[in-house]
């Protein structure tokens, strides 16, 4: 096995129309500016793709990019990124996935892969270190994800597959690798539109060796210590998965109930992570490698299944007023069979239920009832009946049937399972997230609710928190390492650890910039540095690291503004802005306009939300 | 839905305009009564109206100006202005002998043969503050006529003449279509009548 020090830097560019591929190299400057993962994927598409192409057309490209951490043995580094123009939102979408395909592709010798064009007939791609083979997908086209993946895995260590939903160009279709998904933004439909059923990478052809082995070992030890000490990463997430947040969110009124009309519900404990862990006797089932261990599997309805994640539980559960964990798991299994994003699906079903209630469409769906839900999921995946329209996403469905005021999406992407009226900073995060209604772009709710460090109802400094977290997470997703490690890295260093909690809270509430910049996240750049070594690129300091994150975020924003995104799209569903909730003693809404103005200013956008030229120049983004 | 968020709204009143319009109606009524006595032209014009004829000028809607319980306590001068108690209105009566008389503002026991109704207080204000001429106001629907249209034309014509008598040219020029020339109405007659009508309107009637 060949050893590669630091990073391999090879890009595989595949043109399906001509069935040819080319090999190119990531240059040092780009590596330094955009790191890898998400940043690199965006940069590659930015250089190659014209704005205004049809997401489901030939001209769209999809990039799969690995980070520098992948394969190095850094903790929680088993993640890769997929970037494309989303058919659901019509703008760029980036999705992180922890499946085995990333490691397989990286160890096959590729740091990135770009697919363009459209195959004339269904194919699957088999990748090895020499290049790619286009193989007809006759046998697996039309099969569900389980069967297709099993078939492909015969030829390599990791595979990506789409289900029937992707084949049918369902705009919320996802891509699967192992038990993990490239979930959001309808990437499955992009592959489906290119007639690609799956991609399999041989794996195991090269081995990544860190440049500074000793330092790297030390850092990994420190990293693991942080993770194991942090109560979230080592405690709740490790024991109960992401769904451990349910109870905290329910008491603070931040779970979606009944298509985002309410923020808490009395029966939520039935679907909490703790209940599920006990009831289904869960075991770990995670990305590889991982130290946090948030993924779980358990025995549900007599078979071993993956335990639904927080978002799945709330979008397919509480949002539909369904509090039966087995039913939620059933829906989850259907989604992973047909290949659909559970968050978007939950949003769509919530919309459909309310639209049915209001007489806009005719379905058998009803809030609080599981009846017809499974059938509707099948209909959506297979584009049957009204499912065909629902498969277009809640935005397009609402355009056709009405009910745009309660279609819970931002920029076309359905909202995840946090109710922003209980955490306004998180609401701003939804509005400004580049790919649409996304919780992972900034996840300010972690500060507002999970760590209880800021008042969730005041707009004070929320713009700064959102900005800081966006930059940080963009950088983390470019390394690429699990986002949850950020909690450990942010809160475990000495200074934060010894500060009394009330002081931290006061600081965060009143001087957020100071508080946030005091957080020492230098562990990330240090790891990066240990892997790549100084001889390869200049030293990456913490500020530079955050700036790289900012660059990635602003580049994505800039790419989106070329597709027509502006202030008008940075908004929330009307319901969140105008309707008070019954679960609040005093009705309140998200004061978005106020926060947005400040956010634009601190970001360096103009009042219409377009990045100013000065900002782009400062970040070194070439204006096209 | 919380319907208390959208309260019912009972609109208020425009007291100043009510006051002005009330006074003006009184002046118009009294002036017509006097002019019919002292001026031949007005008399001839009003002679076209049948005898025993009651004319009413009012601002709609009548019910918007409720009868206050204390109305009876007020001196008749105040109630006759038509200001508060009976709505803003005035009555002119032509008796059997053909004399025109202003008979106050109390609608009780009076049956109007012809009603000239201003559609709103604002409309009455526009007309009676001479921002719109009588003809324009009619075109713009500022007042409607209930009863025989020909009679109302007679009335409007008489009103036009009285306006010329009462008001300086600069104002009445706005109110009438064609200001009479000297050949039609001599200066002497105009000024003399103006004085007489004013004095009598405010005194003996």
């Amino acid at each position, binding site marked *: 096995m060949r050893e590669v020090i630091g990073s391999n830097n090879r890009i595989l560019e595949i043109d399906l129309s001509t069935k040819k591929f080319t090999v190119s190299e990531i240059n040092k400057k780009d590596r330094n500016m955009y790191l890898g993962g998400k940043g690199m994927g965006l940069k590659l598409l930015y250089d190659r793709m014209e704005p205004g192409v049809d997401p489901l057309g030939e001209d769209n490209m999809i990039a799969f990019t690995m980070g520098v951490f992948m394969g190095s043995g850094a903790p929680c580094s088993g993640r890769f990124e997929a970037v494309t123009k989303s058919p659901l939102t019509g703008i760029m979408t980036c999705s992180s996935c922890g499946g085995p395909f990333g490691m397989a592709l990286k160890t096959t010798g590729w740091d990135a892969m770009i697919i363009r064009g459209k195959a004339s007939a269904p194919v699957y791609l088999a990748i090895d270190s020499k290049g790619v083979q286009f193989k007809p997908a006759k046998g697996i086209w039309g099969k569900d994800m389980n069967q297709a993946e099993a078939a492909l895995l015969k030829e390599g260590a990791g595979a990506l597959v789409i289900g029937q939903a992707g084949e049918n160009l369902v705009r919320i279709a996802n891509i699967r690798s192992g038990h993990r998904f490239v979930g959001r933004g309808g990437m499955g439909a992009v592959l489906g539109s290119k007639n690609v059923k799956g991609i399999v990478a041989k794996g195991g052809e090269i081995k990544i060796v860190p440049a500074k082995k000793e330092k790297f070992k030390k850092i990994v030890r420190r990293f693991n210590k942080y993770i194991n000490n942090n109560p979230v990463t080592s405690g709740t997430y490790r024991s109960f998965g992401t769904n451990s947040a349910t109870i905290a969110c329910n008491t603070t009124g931040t779970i979606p109930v009944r298509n985002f009309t309410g923020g808490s519900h009395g029966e939520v404990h039935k679907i909490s992570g703790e209940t599920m862990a006990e009831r289904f006797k869960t075991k770990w089932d995670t990305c590889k490698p991982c130290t946090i261990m948030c993924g779980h599997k358990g025995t549900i309805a007599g078979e071993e299944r993956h335990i639904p994640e927080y978002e799945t539980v709330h979008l397919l559960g509480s949002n539909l007023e369904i509090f039966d964990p087995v039913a939620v798991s059933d829906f989850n299994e259907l989604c992973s069979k047909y290949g659909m994003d559970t968050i978007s699906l939950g949003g769509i079903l919530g919309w459909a239920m309310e639209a049915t209630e209001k007489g806009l469409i005719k379905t058998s769906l009803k809030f609080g009832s599981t009846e017809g839900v499974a059938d509707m999921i099948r209909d959506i995946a297979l584009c049957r009946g009204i499912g065909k329209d629902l498969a277009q996403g809640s935005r397009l469905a609402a355009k056709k049937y009405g009910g745009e005021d309660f279609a819970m999406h931002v920029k076309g992407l359905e909202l995840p399972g946090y109710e922003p009226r209980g955490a306004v900073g998180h609401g701003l995060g939804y509005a400004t997230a580049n790919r649409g209604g996304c919780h992972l772009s900034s996840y300010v709710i972690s500060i507002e609710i999970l760590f209880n460090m800021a008042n969730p109802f005041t707009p004070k400094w929320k713009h700064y928190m959102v900005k800081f977290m966006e930059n940080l997470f963009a950088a983390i997703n470019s390394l690429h390492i699990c986002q949850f490690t950020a909690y450990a890295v942010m809160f475990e260093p000495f200074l934060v650890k010894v500060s009394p909690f009330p002081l931290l809270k006061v600081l965060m509430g009143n001087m957020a910039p100071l508080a946030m910049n005091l957080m020492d996240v230098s562990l990330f750049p240090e790891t990066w540095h240990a892997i790549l070594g100084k001889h390869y690129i200049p030293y990456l300091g913490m500020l530079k690291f955050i700036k790289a994150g900012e660059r990635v975020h602003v580049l994505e924003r800039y790419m989106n503004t070329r597709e027509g995104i502006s202030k008008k799209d940075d908004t929330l569903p009307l319901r969140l802005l105008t309707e008070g909730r019954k679960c609040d003693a005093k009705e309140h809404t998200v004061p978005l306009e106020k926060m947005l103005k400040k956010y634009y200013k601190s970001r360096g956008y103009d009042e219409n939300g377009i990045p100013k030229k000065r900002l782009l120049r400062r970040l070194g983004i070439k204006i096209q | 839905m919380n319907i208390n968020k959208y309260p019912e709204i009972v609109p208020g009143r425009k007291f100043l305009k009510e006051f002005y319009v009330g006074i003006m109606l009184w002046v118009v009524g009294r002036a017509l009564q006097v002019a019919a006595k002292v001026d031949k032209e007005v008399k001839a014009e009003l002679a*076209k109206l049948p005898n025993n004829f009651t004319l009413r000028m009012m601002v709609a809607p009548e019910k918007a100006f409720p009868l206050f319980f204390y109305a009876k306590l007020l001196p008749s001068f105040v109630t006759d202005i038509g200001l508060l108690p009976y709505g803003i209105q005035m009555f002119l009566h032509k008796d059997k002998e053909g004399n025109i008389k202003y008979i106050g503002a109390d609608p009780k026991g009076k049956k109007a043969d012809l009603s000239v109704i201003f559609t709103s207080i604002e409309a009455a204000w526009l007309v009676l503050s001479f921002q719109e001429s009588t003809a324009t106001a009619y075109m713009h629907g500022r007042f409607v006529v209930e009863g025989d249209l*020909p009679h109302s*034309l007679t009335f409007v014509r008489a009103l036009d003449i009285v306006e010329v008598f009462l008001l300086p040219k600069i104002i009445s020029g706005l109110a*009438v*279509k064609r200001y*009479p020339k000297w050949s039609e109405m001599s200066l002497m007659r105009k000024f003399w009548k103006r004085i007489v009508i004013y004095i009598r309107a405010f005194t003996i009637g």
Partner: protein
Amino acid sequence: MLLPSFYDFCCRVKTISGHKALEAIPGLLAGMNARRPLIVTDKGVAAVGLIGIVKKALGSKLKIGAIYDNVPVDSDYKVVDDAAKVYKKKGCDSIISIGGGSVIDTAKGINIVASLGSDTLLDYQGFGAVNRKLNPHVVIPTTAGTGSEMTLVAVIADPDRKIKMLFVSYFILPDIAVLDPRMTKTLPGFLTAATAMDAMTHACEAYFCLEKNPMSDGHAYRAIKLISDNLLKVVKNPGDMKGRLALANASALAGVAFSNSMVGVVHNLGHTIGALCHVPHGNAMSILLPYGMEYNLHKSGDIIGEILLPLGGAEIYASTPKKKRAEKVVELIRKMNQDLHDATGGRHPRFLKEITDRNGKQIVPHSMLPTIADCMMLDGARMSNPEEVLPADAILILEHAWEGTPLNRKKINKGGKKVKY
């Protein structure tokens, strides 16, 4: 275009126009949940066979409840009550009126009584008495002139009290007006001329009188243009269906225009002459129109001048200097009257003295003029004339119109400001 400081415009009637417009009626009535109409008409219309045409066009889709053809020329409330009884007895649910102004007004009255439930029209006098939606009412005008199908007024006489009762309400407006050239096909030339000139007068007066507004202007402009383009053609060639359709349209357009912009001295005098001497309305209108314009020339000459464009065409308009345009309009109207006079073999009168009855007797004797001038003061149309009209002025106009000489404009009493619309 002029923007008035205030105006209102209302024309609620759905217009159906075309060579096969009648055939659309069953569908439209069905759309309003009506299946069994009462047909209201007069003997004259029935005599020329128009009912047959309508019946044939309605076909079998619609069951006609009854046909009431007893409407006299001057309709009164007794006729209305009588017809309403027929309506109720036969279980009708809508009205189709076929005829001229009198028939249409009667039908409006019938609709009030039949829809609101009382036995007699007398119950619905006064402001606001008609206060809810009436049953569907389809109007098929046969004269191309009155524009009565477009107005929200119904004038119905009360012979006992010798007054004309005025019913004004939005709900009185017919629902549908059907303009079909087949209905005017049999109209003789001189009547075509008279009714069309009536419409012309509506349009012209609507264009220059006080309540003119942008919408009425748009309608009036097109009415004038259609009439000036088509009238002579149709009079000369009565079978010209295209021309007939154009005239029917023009009449409706003029009806819309004048019912929203009111009319002036021409109608003022015309109504009075009609009432006192029983002159056909159209004839009085066509004779007085040029005089009415001349009378108002000094006040609204510019506006009257604009009429030259639809009346004479762009070439004449452009070649006439601005100041002369209004005079040219008057000249053209006179010429039009003259042409019609020639084309109808003298049956279209040019001056008041030319109007004769069947026996060749003058209808308007010269001695009547002072009486007309006095009574003129009682007609509502004088309010909306740009210039004040007093008996002395009326005499001036009437004298000239009687003789047929152009108005001596030096004698007109001038004063006051320019008209503010």
